[in-house]
């Protein structure tokens, strides 16, 4: 969509502009900055502040540049006396009631009102009346505070909430001079995207509770980086003062995040300052030196017959590559898996040839969500799909039983995957199918079989977007952290890829597919694994069969864990090493689309925490392997060499303005094979309810629980039940329910039934209960197809 180019005259200079675009934007593209407060390029124009008024030949009076589209031949004057007078006037108006408490305002030093006053404002104040007063500040949500005296009524926050997030929970109250931002008495401003209001507020009226009074803008430095709280990979600027991360602001990249962040990403930096970070290597609970940890690990690996590794999805590409190489070259094992049996078959993810990008969603005729609730797991992707559906008229189809934040806009909701077929979808236009594990109880093989059949039936019109929520899971798979893959989305069996690798990876490495997480844990439980690496992985909490995980860890003689914090799993560690994490290390990551972006360190890791790459390199060197990978840059250079898909990831391509888009990874040699005929869906037992067990944005997981701003927001141990089911079962909102596996028990054996507080929720499909995971109670097993009997607690 290239807009027609027209010539317009601005202040006597002829320039080229895109027809139909707003004058304020086109002027700026041509180097003429028209001052503004209310206009924001990502929001609909309201032209309320009146700061951007200009003269346009042939139009009566002054016109708001943020509202007028450009036309061929338009003559614009932005510098006349009349324009200047109005600019001064508007600034004077804005300042008369402004508290001017700049010295204690978070925005002081980076405030458009201050800057504009200097550049366009009147020299002196003529106002001698009483200023407007409000109690200040007030809480509009757990994360956002509002100082109504500083508000300039620009409606940016209300528009972000309503237009972008669909959470119209802040609005204006009253009118005229008393116009002020309010929340609704019975409905808090509970939005996963509330922090964006702070980001767009042009003054210090909205402040983020965690940032408030923490720093002055001139004391901070910022690095551009990528959020890793999920795999969307939003671009952000991470700010630091005195070696403390203090805020993350969204950076506007068209093809990625449009400037937005979700609150989990925005406030996720808080973990870097957590008191209980692991700071020192430990062996059997005692602090040791790094040298001792490396030595112990090397000895264990050297003498092991069988080495396996689980995890790596939280690593950078460089870290994941180092782990992948270590396992293959040093440990001689393909028993590696970055997933915890909670995602998709890695081979399917790697084999998708025509992978959809976020921008494909913008232009698709239809989007099919056979995926978890994007709002909970990939929040900023949710915003984009929402925008496509609402603003571009994209048809939305939801399949597979997950309720999603977008259900009410769906053209069709198919409870079972089988109920949606190619014939149900629009006959023309591109179709993006988002495929992701909707529940731990969903059989992932069935999901990808359905997706591949659908894709085959739709032919060239379809693009798949396989989604794994965890941080850099997609990068980890690209780096070969899967039992049947090697770096570059190639199978372990692929002879060509083997030759390419062999040139760099000197020595032997196995060609038979290894074991995935479940098989590794089963083997370990049978005493068949000598050394098990757990890299940022917590199977006791996250693997769908916690008993198996515990048994496995218990029986493995050498459990070597690298993590940021103690977790239920670290209790089993023989060697525990403190990892450096997001915000503390440099490198690259690959988002769900396959977009490689830069990760930048802003602060120094605490204590002796260090990157995982270092750890694996040191162990390798100790075992006499010339490992390479001395720095992230050297590792990336090696990745470019051995992974053809990553050949374009030169540092230069990832930096600067061009680099904001990142580098898209090309497809590998694998291809999705259509499964042919689908297995028939199973029928639900009488009275039993199907279970959807999945993540919510906030939970009591390791990282979120270390972010004080976020930890308070977890829903806690609840179970969501459809009102019809609740009525049938006599369950009331807020009461306790008891869940037991239904049927003869072959599916699951829970030592104890699960007790959870009932939330009656019309969004949950009838016949299903939704169980948010990681809510602080004891984890239970979630076998495929699990159904439960639910009853009130008494």
């Amino acid at each position, binding site marked *: 969509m290239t807009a027609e180019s027209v010539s317009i005259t601005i202040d006597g200079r002829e320039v080229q502009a895109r027809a139909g675009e707003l004058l304020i934007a086109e002027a700026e593209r041509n180097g003429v900055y028209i001052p503004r407060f209310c206009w924001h390029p990502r929001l609909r124009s309201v032209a309320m502040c009146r700061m951007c008024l200009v003269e346009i030949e042939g139009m009566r009076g002054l016109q708001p540049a943020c509202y007028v589209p450009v036309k061929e031949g338009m003559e614009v004057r932005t510098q006349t006396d009349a324009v200047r007078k109005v600019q001064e006037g508007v600034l004077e108006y*804005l300042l008369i009631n402004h508290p001017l408490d700049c010295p204690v305002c978070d925005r002081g030093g980076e405030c458009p009102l201050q800057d504009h006053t200097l550049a366009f404002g009147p020299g002196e104040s003529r106002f001698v009346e009483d200023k407007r007063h409000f109690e200040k500040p007030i809480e509009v949500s757990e994360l956002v505070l509002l100082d109504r005296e500083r508000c300039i009524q620009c409606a940016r926050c209300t528009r972000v909430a309503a237009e972008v997030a669909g959470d119209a929970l802040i609005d204006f109250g009253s009118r*005229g001079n008393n116009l002020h931002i309010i929340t609704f008495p019975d409905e808090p401003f509970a939005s996963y995207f509330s922090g964006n209001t702070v980001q767009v507020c042009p003054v210090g009226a909205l402040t983020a509770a965690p940032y408030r009074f923490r720093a002055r803008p001139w004391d901070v430095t910022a690095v551009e980086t990528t959020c890793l709280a999920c795999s969307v990979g939003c671009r952000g600027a991470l700010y630091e003062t005195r070696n403390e991360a203090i805020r993350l602001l969204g950076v506007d990249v068209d093809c990625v995040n449009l400037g937005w962040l979700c609150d989990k990403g925005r406030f996720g930096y808080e973990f870097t300052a957590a008191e209980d970070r692991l700071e020192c290597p430990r062996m059997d609970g005692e602090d040791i030196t790094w040298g001792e940890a490396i030595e112990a690990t090397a000895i264990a690996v050297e003498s092991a017959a069988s080495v396996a590794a689980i995890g790596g999805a939280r690593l950078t590409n460089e870290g994941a590559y180092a782990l992948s190489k270590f396992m293959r070259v040093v440990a001689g094992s393909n028993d590696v898996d970055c997933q915890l049996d909670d995602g998709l078959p890695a081979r399917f993810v790697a084999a998708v040839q025509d992978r959809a990008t976020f921008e494909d969603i913008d232009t698709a005729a239809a989007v099919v969500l056979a995926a978890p609730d994007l709002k909970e797991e990939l929040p900023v992707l949710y915003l984009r799909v929402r925008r496509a559906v609402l603003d571009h008229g994209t048809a939305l189809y939801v399949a597979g039983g997950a309720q999603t934040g977008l259900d009410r806009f769906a053209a069709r909701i198919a409870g079972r995957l089988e109920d949606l077929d190619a014939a149900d979808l629009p006959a023309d236009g591109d179709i993006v199918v988002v495929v992701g594990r909707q529940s731990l109880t969903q059989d992932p093989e069935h999901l990808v079989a359905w997706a591949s059949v659908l894709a085959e039936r739709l032919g060239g019109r379809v693009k798949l977007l396989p989604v794994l929520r965890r941080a850099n899971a997609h990068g980890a798979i690209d780096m070969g952290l899967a039992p049947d893959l090697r770096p570059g989305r190639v199978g372990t069996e692929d002879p060509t890829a083997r030759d390419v690798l062999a040139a760099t990876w000197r020595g032997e490495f196995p060609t038979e597919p290894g074991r995935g997480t479940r098989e590794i844990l089963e083997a370990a439980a049978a005493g068949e694994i000598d050394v098990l690496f757990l890299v940022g992985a917590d199977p006791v909490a996250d693997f769908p069969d916690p008993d198996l995980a515990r048994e496995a860890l218990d029986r493995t003689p050498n459990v070597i864990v690298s993590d940021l914090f103690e977790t239920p799993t670290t209790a089993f560690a023989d060697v525990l090493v403190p990892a450096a994490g997001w915000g503390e290390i440099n490198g690259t990551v690959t988002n769900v689309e396959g977009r490689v972006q830069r990760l930048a360190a802003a602060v120094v890791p605490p204590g002796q925490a260090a990157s995982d790459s270092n750890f694996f390199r040191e162990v390798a060197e100790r075992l006499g392997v010339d490992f390479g990978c001395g720095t992230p840059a050297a590792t990336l250079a090696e990745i470019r060499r051995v992974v053809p898909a990553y050949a374009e990831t030169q540092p230069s391509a990832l930096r600067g303005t061009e680099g904001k888009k990142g580098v898209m990874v090309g497809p590998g040699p694998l291809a999705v094979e259509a499964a042919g005929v689908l297995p028939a869906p199973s029928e639900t037992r009488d009275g039993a309810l199907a279970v959807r067990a999945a993540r919510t944005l906030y939970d009591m997981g390791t990282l979120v629980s270390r972010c004080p701003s976020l930890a308070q927001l977890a829903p806690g141990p609840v179970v969501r039940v459809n009102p019809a089911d609740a009525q049938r079962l006599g369950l009331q909102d807020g009461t306790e329910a008891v869940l037991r596996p239904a049927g003869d028990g072959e599916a699951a054996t829970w030592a104890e039934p699960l007790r959870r507080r009932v939330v009656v929720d019309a969004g949950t499909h009838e016949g299903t209960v939704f169980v948010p995971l990681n809510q602080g109670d004891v984890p239970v097993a979630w076998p495929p197809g699990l159904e439960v009997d639910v009853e009130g607690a008494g």
Partner: protein
Amino acid sequence: MAELVLTKRMIEHPRDSWTLATYEETGGYGALRQAVREMTPEQVHDEVKAAGLRGRGGAGFPTGVKWGFLPDGEYPRYLVVNGDEGEPGTFKDRMLMERDPHQLVEGAILSAYAVGAEHVFIYCRGELRNAYERLCRAVDEATEKGYAGTNVLGSGFDVKLTVHRAAGAYICGEETALLTSLEGYRGWPRLKPPFPAVKGLYAGPTVVNNVETLSNVPWIVRNGGAAYAAMGTEKSPGTRLFCLSGHVNRPGNYEIELGTPFREFFDRWGQGIRNGERVKAFIPGGASAPWLDASSLDLPMSMEALDSVKSMLGSGAVVVMDETTNVVRPVWNLVHFFAHESCGQCTPCREGTTWLQDILARIVDGRGRREDLDLLLDVCDNITPGLGWPPAQTTICVLAPSAAAPIWSTLRLFRDDYEELLPTANEVAAGV
């Protein structure tokens, strides 16, 4: 003296002018019967154009021309009747809605027929309960009798009427704020373009007309546009209902032929100035109009005459002040009204009108400063650059320029009144 177009029935039938029976007995709904049976919509439209009828809501825009702005072939279309009358001193639409609701209903149905609107919304000021109830009743009766609803009088024309009771904000009289409020949102004026004719109610083509404007339409259809145009002046044809208040002996609503001089209006209809005083100042057309002084008394009450002195007939509210008046307090009163009614979207209006009000309040209170007078003008100038007429504006709607008009017009004509209120040098020194 011309015929009475709007008020004949209520004058002759003071007790029951508002009932259907009286309305029908006095020829009511005859125009509608005639129109739907014998005239095409275009012909009705043509009569209104020929009448030269101009809007009575404030801006005086020619009604027939406005109807012509609806884009061809776009349906559904809406007709919205503006009965939000709330400007200080204006109380004519209330009388038309209370005392002759069927005249308005018939006018609205005829107009809907002319413009092809399938739904008429009558937006009635919330405080006017009696008007609201009588309108509702009139609409029900008209629908029962087949004047409205499906297949009006067997003609195949369908029109539905809905009376909406507003929630009491003056700004909702501004047509786009009205539409937004009718849709159920906060009553804020919209940015233009698009104009309501193109994208109005529910984003459909919409005509918004004032109560009085549409109340003329039955007469015009019955008697022909030419008969209407024969009254009044060339550019301001017909009669108008003026709301006369202030220092006259007999304030009230009077329907008079346009072109009548103010002096005659005050003397004959208003029966002179109270206590035999002389006129010092008058507001010729509602709170938004620039004020005039006694030198304009011989001006004919026509839109063109008011244009020539840079003011307007506006909403038809005429307020007279005699020579005992200091104008600053009434000016403050109006500015206070506008500041209070500002919707608050636009910075100059939200901040500026309150600032103006505060300065005026200080002056009235004897705490003015000499520099306040120029400050007032400059603050006005930032709202309505150039202080001219028709007003330029830096705001979305003209409420803010309306607030400035009384100030700059009186500072030109009656600056002495302001100075009189300023403390003398001695008072300032003494700090009293």
